């Protein structure tokens, strides 16, 4: 059992796949995204979850594909992917930073 976040690290979101996708699509999406990332194409650089957008990494892609190829793991993440990023309709707004003390 992995200790990854069921929502923000969900392999379906990382690979941009639906929970009912065919196993072949996992392989294909993993290869395509890894290629895009290698070429520095913007589209591959991030993925969306109901909790916002996150950076996509080659390690994340590899791990996501491995998880979806494991039927037990896939079944667990399917339960959490019942809300698609676009369906959740959570309006997230980081808002402007207030910190007058931050020099970052």
């Amino acid at each position, binding site marked *: *059992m992995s200790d990854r976040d*069921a*929502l923000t690290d969900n392999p379906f979101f990382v690979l941009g796949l639906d929970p009912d996708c065919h196993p072949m699509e996992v392989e294909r999406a993993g290869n395509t995204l890894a290629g895009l990332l290698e070429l520095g194409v913007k589209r591959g650089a991030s993925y969306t979850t*109901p*909790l*916002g957008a996150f950076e996509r990494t080659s390690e994340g892609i590899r791990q996501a594909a491995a998880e979806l190829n494991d*039927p*037990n793991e*896939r*079944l*667990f993440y*399917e*339960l*959490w992917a*019942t*809300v698609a990023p676009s*369906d*959740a*309709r*959570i*309006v*997230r*707004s980081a*808002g*402007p*930073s*207030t*910190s*007058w*003390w*931050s*020099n*970052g």
Partner: protein
Amino acid sequence: MSRWEEELNRLRKLVKAKFSEFEAMWTPSAPGTATRDNRPGAANQAGPRRSQEATAGSGPARGSMIERALALHWPRPAPDPEATAARLEAQLAETAALNAARVAAAGLVAAYRGRLEEARSLLGIVDGFDRYNDAGASRLAFQWLAADAADRADWRYALDLGSSHGDQDPSGQLRFFAALAGWHLRLPEQLVSPLELRQMADGMPDVANAQALVTAATHQGGPVPQQLPHDGLLSRAVAMHTVVRATPASRLQTRDLKELAALWDRVLRSRAIRRHITQRAAALGATVTAGALLERLAETVRSDLSATLLSGSVQLSEVADGERDGILGGLIDALEMRLCAELDISMVALTERLDAGRELTLLGECHQWLSLRRQVDRLGRLCGASGRLVAFNTVYPQVGQWSIDLWNSRKAHSLANAMFRWIAELAGGIEEQRVAETYRNNQEW
């Protein structure tokens, strides 16, 4: 005029002259020379310039300590901020007289290092820390805390700071953050018009992003959970779970958590979902059973909610409402056990150190007390009256004796006083009036 009145007037003039000198030191030399940075998170230079640490009878070295700590946060900090921070840390660690200004300086250095929880604790005790009632240091601390609260979307605290201390802050920053809070919390009695809010923002050019903050407050109050779109039980639970996680901890409501826990309990009991999992497992060739998968689901939910509860202001006892079953029951038991164990460990460590006579620097003693105080506060906040009772019984009388020793042996009167005050408040909160009275009487001012 009596001799005493003459003496009093003389002292007043002396203090005023000293304060004027200090204020002049903190005022920019000419308009336009101060650096400004419009990027998010840029430094505000308003409050600190008016810091009147000199009223605490401090010499130039003490003034320069808070000045250097503050300079770490300016848009163009000292040429070598790392070295400055390291020197300050060394000086503060060795200080033999901990006063409000030095606690504030330690807080600012902690904030510079990114240790924000420590910074919050230190700056949170500056007001009334020493007998001189250092208004400048207090104001600076309140301004930092208010801006920090706004950054964390803890609008209730920002509002509280503005209401309690706004009139002590001529820069208007505390009132500004309180006005923003009124919008974020949608409190009709606190709402000022958007135009007025913009005027307030215009009036404090040193607050970075003031106008952007106004826009954010008046257009929406941060993340807003929208209508949940799904009809299925599992989908609704996941969607609501997402909403709760997306909501800033300070805005979480007891009813949201109760509703979410009830939804998850229904998911875990649902025969239809169990059937779906079994069928899906067969289709995928999974070996996991529905029971095991649902247990993993419950564990994930508890872990997420536990993190949410630990960072929020919701009381577990309110959420539980006597309930000890289901998702919440397990969560409450686990959290209570964890918090009590953490406090026990801290107390064992403290007792061992004190028994062995190993003294820390005064700032070290202060840090250990603040760390303990955070744990006690959290236990009380999460577990309500029972948590406060357990916390008090765990830390008292060891901490009481510690504070008395600091007063008697180390002559750390300001720190000991702050501890006396805290113990009195803790004891008062659980109706231990005799202890509360004793520690109130211990306080010197």
